[in-house]
């Protein structure tokens, strides 16, 4: 079973977001990293870039394939995890910790209500055959 921390919100595309004031930290879930397998390359936006909820903000590549990263909320990128670009395997090893990807200044807090609770995300995983 994949780990689903209780203090996060989730997208249907398997990203997580941790909200701290108006800042959101974004990464991909344990389920996502397991499904992708060994992650070997990550492409992320630059600091200052704007991202939009539902749009691709980067790419994560496993040995076998490239997958888009979808923004759970809209906002301005205020920090990028350079360490994860250098060592993409951190996403496999610690998806909710060292494997975080970007921090954004959330521009529309209402979008957070559209995201899944940990319980709803667990249900989604069950539906996807976890």
């Amino acid at each position, binding site marked *: 079973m994949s780990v689903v921390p209780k203090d996060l919100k989730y997208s249907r595309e398997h990203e997580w977001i941790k909200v701290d004031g108006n800042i959101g930290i974004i990464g991909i879930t344990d389920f996502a990293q397991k499904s992708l*397998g*060994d992650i*070997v*390359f990550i*492409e992320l936006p630059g600091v200052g870039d704007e991202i939009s909820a539902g749009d691709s903000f980067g*790419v994560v*590549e496993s*040995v*076998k394939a*490239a997958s888009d990263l979808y923004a759970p909320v809209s906002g301005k990128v205020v920090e990028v995890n350079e360490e994860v670009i250098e060592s993409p395997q951190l996403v496999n090893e610690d998806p909710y910790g060292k494997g975080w990807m970007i921090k954004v200044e959330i521009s529309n807090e209402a979008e957070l209500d559209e995201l899944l609770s940990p319980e709803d995300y667990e249900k989604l995983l069950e539906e996807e055959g976890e």
Partner: protein
Amino acid sequence: MENLKRTPLYEEHIKLGAKMVPFGGWEMPVQYTGILEEHMAVRTDVGMFDVSHMGEIEITGKQAERFVNYLITNDVSRLNSGDVIYTTMCYPDGGTVDDLLAYKYSTERYLLVVNAANKDKDLAHILQYRWDDVTVTDLSDETAEIALQGPRAQEILQKLTAFDLNQIKYFGFAEIEVAGVPCLVSRTGYTGEDGFEIYFAPNLATKIWNELLNLGVKPAGLGARDTLRFEACLPLYGHELSAEITPLEAGLGWAVKFNKEDFIGKEALLAQKNAGLKRKIVGLEMIGAGIPRQGYEIVFNQRGVGFVTSGTFAPFLKKNLAMAMVDLEAAEIGTEVDVIIRGKGVRARVISRPFYKRGK
């Protein structure tokens, strides 16, 4: 995964927690614990692959050897009994039907081991050209296969057989017992490492698999099989070879012997050779950040000059590499080109192949 065939080792894969995927009409393990780990095990220690999905086609009869030589581009006439040869098999226009291994038992008996996804097509092709005095038999359903690969492959396999494995030379084979099971064992493989391909009856597959497992051999899936063959620059049908790509363009001219009797595709391939190749497969190393994938366009001097045939992060070499089919103007070692990754050109350099070669 409806209508997919399963190998006799299917239950073993499930027990080991393998991730199963459809491949060439089969339900196959793509990985057990992870592609990188499995890849490294084969490079540095020993690993095994269930390759029971491969096709085995036997050619027998007084004219078997001459017929095989007519079918394929390489020359089997100089083989001794117990030798294996790598070859391509072509259409009359020079395009590739498949690449395969030919095992010579005698001039009257050959075994062709072909790609799983191509087996039916190959069989139809062979039957289309079959001579009256040869017999073509599809042994695929009666044959299971495990590939044992890696620097410790011989040490491990020796524990399961009384036969001195030193007697099986590179690209040689012998009919011996492994774990008490009669097997055909060849010193061949698809990883760039030393190793063996072991063929036996399907009902005995589990026994051999588990004996090897108990000796500490790491099971490896199709994912690692692909990254390993890629690092060693071994061609994969549908990537470096296809009906649209001739063996000459794929850099397999060494497996096309024009100095033998007639063979299917000879005229076309000879014409291509005499006219000079217009494109060929090269190796690429990324200079910029990005992973080149199959189908990505290659640009040189603002012009599209080709496409990536296989590309990935090479786990042992730890580089982002590709094989690509490019026009000759961009094929020289050292040439810098752009690989178009998600709409942007990313710099890459033509480098020599193979990327990986094991030490002697």
